[in-house]
């Protein structure tokens, strides 16, 4: 109990510090933010990770390092800041983009990792995580192919180590390329694997890009159930040849990320007029930012550096090449569908 409180306190303290640093840095630069709050939050999370790892208490203090919970709550709150018609407009294009890019990147990664001689279950986890939505997709794929726990831990670390540089570079690259907020958001949402880093990169670019990036990523998230179902079906029918273990279609609903429903309900509440614009600006947006700041802090705190010592260079090379292909495909799809 005491450790849970300490763990939660550490997350809150670092989120408060990230908020404070963002405000202070604004003072240093005469009003312009030196670094956006997601960068401060992730950096402080990484610093905290290093400090508690060196002190040997990281394992004991990890109870409240819940990136997914903070992120999903932030996304539900974000739903109340976006009109439902905008969600449907962006989401429809996002689904088209997701189906095209996810399918191409999944099979590219699958065959590339086979060419590199990786373990079949690790290939499934890596293909799902790089093509769909990072750690969540890796967890769903691990369930579909009954992967080893070590594979999941390794892929989760791989996802974060690749997502962090993209989160920092891609928004500035989009600005340098002169992309509109819609195209930049769709590119970020279609490329970066893990949803938390997508929201972070979007926030670094602009509020408008963050909303588009989040809706596009949520469209991808909504496909997890289908992807896991077909992966499990392929696994038992083709790889293991055990047709009696065929997955049931209800698994699609079981694996469907329920926070998507909360996101839509929150948008419906706002669109139906139950929230005034002032209420959204003065309460919902700050609450959303606090939950997202905690999620960004947790990304830094959860990164397990030790995982990279457990496997060779091949998975890292595969992930790097797959990420490059994903980046180019997502840019093309974003440009065609959102410009």
């Amino acid at each position, binding site marked *: 109990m005491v450790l849970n409180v300490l763990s939660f306190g550490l997350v809150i303290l670092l989120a408060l510090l990230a908020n404070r640093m963002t405000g202070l840095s604004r003072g240093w630069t005469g009003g312009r933010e030196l670094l956006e709050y997601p960068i401060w939050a992730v950096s402080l999370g990484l610093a905290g990770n290093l400090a508690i790892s060196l002190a040997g208490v990281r394992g004991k203090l990890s109870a409240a390092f*819940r990136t997914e919970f903070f992120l*999903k709550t932030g996304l539900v709150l974000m739903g109340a800041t976006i009109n439902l018609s905008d969600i449907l407009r962006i989401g429809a294009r996002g689904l088209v983009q997701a189906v095209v890019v996810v399918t191409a990147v999944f099979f590219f990664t699958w065959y590339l990792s086979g060419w590199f001689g990786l373990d079949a279950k690790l290939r499934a986890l890596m293909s799902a995580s790089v093509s769909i939505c990072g750690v969540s997709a890796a967890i769903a794929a691990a369930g579909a192919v009954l992967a080893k726990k070590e594979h999941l831990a390794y892929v989760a670390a791989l996802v974060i180590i690749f997502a962090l540089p993209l989160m920092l570079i891609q928004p500035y690259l989009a600005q340098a390329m002169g992309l509109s907020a819609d195209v930049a958001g769709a590119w970020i949402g279609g490329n970066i694997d893990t949803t938390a880093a997508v929201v972070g990169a979007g926030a670094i670019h602009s509020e408008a890009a963050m909303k588009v990036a989040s809706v596009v990523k949520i469209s991808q998230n909504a496909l997890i159930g289908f992807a896991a179902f077909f992966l499990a079906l392929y696994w038992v029918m083709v790889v293991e040849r055990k047709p009696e273990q065929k997955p049931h279609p209800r698994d699609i609903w079981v694996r469907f990320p329920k926070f998507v429903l909360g996101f839509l309900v929150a948008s419906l509440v706002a669109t139906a007029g139950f929230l005034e614009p002032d209420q959204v600006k003065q309460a919902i947006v700050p609450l959303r930012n606090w939950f997202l700041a905690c999620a960004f802090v947790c990304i830094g705190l959860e990164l397990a550096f030790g995982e990279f010592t457990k496997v060779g260079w091949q998975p890292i090379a595969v992930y790097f090449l797959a990420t490059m292909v994903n980046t180019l495909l997502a840019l093309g799809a974003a440009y065609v569908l959102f410009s």
Partner: protein
Amino acid sequence: MKGRGYSAAHSQQGNMNEDWLAVIVGLGLVALVAVRLVAQVPW
């Protein structure tokens, strides 16, 4: 890399529970703002 067989059911279940908890907390906060029990949050 060696490791024991892993059903992933535990992670899957944890992920789903977190999903529902996020929905409850998120929509709960939206409701508190809608009925003006929460009016202003500093950021």
